[in-house]
C-alpha cells in the first residue's frame, strides 16, 4: 500500500508540470473561448464585449461562408491525402524492393541517394515550400508554365489543385517513410516463398505486401487525414490567402481571418470552439482505430 502511494506521488510529481502547462495554456484558454463564443466582441465597434447568447452559434449553422469552408477543407483533405498515399505507396514499394533485393553497389548507393532526397520536402518549412511553389506556378516567369508552354495562373485558375500539389509535395515523404518501414518489416522469406509459388510482381504486391502493411497504411492515412483537416494553414495562407473569393478558405484559416483580419473575436471564438470539437471528435475516433490496429 505504501509502495503504491509512493508510486502515485512520484507519478504525480513527474507529470504535474505538464498538466500545469496544459491547464494554463490549453484548458483555460479553451474555457475562455467557450465564454467568448456567447459574446459579440469586435474591437473596431466597441471595446466592451456584448453578451448575445446563441447568436454566434446561429450564425455558425446558417452561414454560407462556414459551410463552404468546411466543404473546401473536406475536399482538400480527401484529395491531398489520396495523392500522398498513392505516391507514397508507389515509391515505398519500389524503394523497398531495391533496398532488399538490389545487390549491386550502384543499387546501394542509389538507394541512399533516394533516401536523402526524399527527406528534403519534409525538412522544408511550410512557409518556404509555399514560397517555392508560388514561384514555380507563376504565370509569366514560372518554370512550370515554361515547360508546359502555357500561360496558366495556377493559384487563381486552379487554386485548390495548386495548394493540394504543394501540400502533397511537402507531406508525401512522411507517409512514404512510414509505409517503407512497414514493408521492410515483412519477413523476406515470405517474398521468397511467393516467388517460388510463381507469383509475379503485381500478385506479390496485392497478395503479400498490401495485406501485410494494411494496419500501418490505415493508421498512417487516418492520422495524416486528421492532421490535414485540422492543421492546414501555412501553405494556403502564403499562396492563395484563402482566395480567389473563398475558394481555398480552409477552416483553420477561416478561424484565424475572422479573428485577426475581420476582428470579430466573438464569431472567431465560436468557429474555434467548432474546430476544437471537430478535432476532439476526430482524434477520439483515431485513438479507437489505433487501439484496434
Amino acid at each position, binding site marked *: 500500500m505504501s509502495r*503504491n502511494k509512493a*508510486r*502515485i506521488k512520484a*507519478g504525480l510529481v513527474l507529470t504535474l*508540470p*505538464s*498538466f500545469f502547462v496544459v491547464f494554463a*495554456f490549453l484548458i483555460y*484558454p*479553451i474555457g*475562455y*473561448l467557450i465564454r*467568448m463564443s456567447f459574446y459579440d466582441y469586435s474591437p473596431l465597434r466597441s471595446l466592451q464585449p456584448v453578451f448575445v447568447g446563441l447568436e454566434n452559434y446561429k450564425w455558425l449553422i446558417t452561414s454560407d461562408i462556414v459551410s463552404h469552408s468546411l466543404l473546401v477543407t473536406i475536399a482538400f483533405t480527401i484529395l491531398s491525402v489520396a495523392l500522398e498515399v498513392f505516391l507514397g505507396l*508507389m*515509391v515505398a514499394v519500389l524503394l523497398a524492393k*531495391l533496398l532488399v533485393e*538490389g545487390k549491386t553497389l550502384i543499387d546501394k548507393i542509389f538507394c541512399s*541517394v*533516394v533516401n*536523402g*532526397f526524399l*527527406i528534403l520536402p*519534409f*525538412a*522544408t*518549412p*511550410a*512557409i518556404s515550400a509555399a*514560397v*517555392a*511553389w508560388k*514561384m*514555380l506556378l507563376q504565370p509569366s*516567369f514560372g*518554370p512550370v508554365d*515554361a515547360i508546359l508552354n502555357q500561360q496558366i495562373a495556377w493559384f487563381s485558375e486552379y487554386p485548390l489543385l495548386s495548394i493540394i500539389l504543394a501540400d502533397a*509535395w511537402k507531406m508525401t515523404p*512522411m507517409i512514404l*517513410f*512510414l509505409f517503407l*518501414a512497414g514493408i521492410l518489416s515483412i519477413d523476406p522469406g515470405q*517474398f521468397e516463398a511467393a516467388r517460388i509459388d510463381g507469383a509475379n510482381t503485381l500478385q506479390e504486391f496485392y497478395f503479400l505486401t498490401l495485406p501485410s502493411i494494411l494496419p500501418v497504411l490505415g493508421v*498512417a492515412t487516418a*492520422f495524416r487525414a*486528421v492532421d490535414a483537416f485540422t*492543421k492546414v494553414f*501555412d501553405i494556403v495562407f502564403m499562396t492563395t490567402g484563402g482566395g480567389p473569393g473563398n475558394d481555398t478558405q480552409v*477552416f*483553420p*484559416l477561416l*478561424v*484565424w481571418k475572422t479573428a*485577426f483580419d475581420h476582428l470579430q*473575436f466573438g464569431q472567431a471564438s465560436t468557429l*474555434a470552439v467548432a*474546430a476544437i470539437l471537430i478535432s*476532439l471528435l*476526430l482524434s477520439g475516433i*483515431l*485513438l479507437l482505430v489505433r487501439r484496434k490496429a
Partner: protein
Amino acid sequence: MKISRSARIVIYVVLIVAILFSFFPMAWMLTSSLKPENEIYSDPPTWIPQTFTTRNFSDLFDKFNFAILTRNSVIISVSVVVISLVIGAMAAYGFSRYKFTGSNILLGGLLLTRMITPSSLVVPLFSIMETLGRLNKLDSIIVGVAVLNLPFVVWMLKPFFDELPREVEEAGEIDGLSPVSVFWRISVPLAAPGLFTVLLFSFIAGWVDLLFGMSFSTVPEAMPLTVGLMQMQTGYKIYWGAMMAGGIYLTLPTFLLALIFQQFLVKGMRSGF
C-alpha cells in the same frame, strides 16, 4: 533473389522522377535566389543564372532585418527545445513508469490535445497574452509553440521509456537511489536517442512556426524569420529575389539537420503516430 531487367528499369525511372520532384522546387528557389531581380522576371525563365549575384542574400540583412530575426528564431527554437525536453521527458517517464489511478485518462486527455487546430488556440491566447502584456515579446510565441508541441513530445517519448529494461532501474533502486536519481542518472541517459529525436522535432517546430509569430508580434524585435519571409509579400509588391533567398536561408538549417540525423527523424515520425 535477382530483380528482373524490366523491373529494374521501372524502379529506377520512378525513383529518379521522385528525386526530381522532391528536389526541383528548392533547386529552382536556389537558382532564383542567385539571379538579379530583372532576370527573375525574364520570360521564358533562365534555367541557370546568367549573372550570378549574392545581392538577394545581403539584402536580407540590409533591408529585411534578418540578423535580428535570426536571433529571435534561434531563441524561440532553443526555448521550445528546453521546455519540451524537461517537461515532456518528465511527463512521458511518469506515464511510462508510474501507472496510478486515472493516469490513463490523464494521458488520453493530453494526447487528444495533439490534434487541436492550432489557429483556434491562437484566438484566446492572443487575448490572454494581451492582458499579460506579452504581445510583441518572444515569450508569448515560445509558450504557444511549446504548448502545442508538448502532447506530441509525450506521445513520442513514452514508447522510448516503455522499451527501457526495468532491471537496470530496479538495480539502481536497490542500491538506494531515489526515484528522481533513478530517472536522472539511469533512465535519461538510456533514453538519449529518444530525447535527441524530441530535441530535433522541437527545434524544427520552433523554427518553422508561422502562426504564433505572425499573430503575436508586429515589430522586428520580436519577430521570427518565418514572419519576415511572409512580409516580403505585400499588397503592392512581392520582393521575389529576397523572398527566394529568405526561403533558402530559412530552409538550410532544417534541411541540414534532416540530412545528418535522418534516422532519428524517421524514427520520430514512426513513434509520433
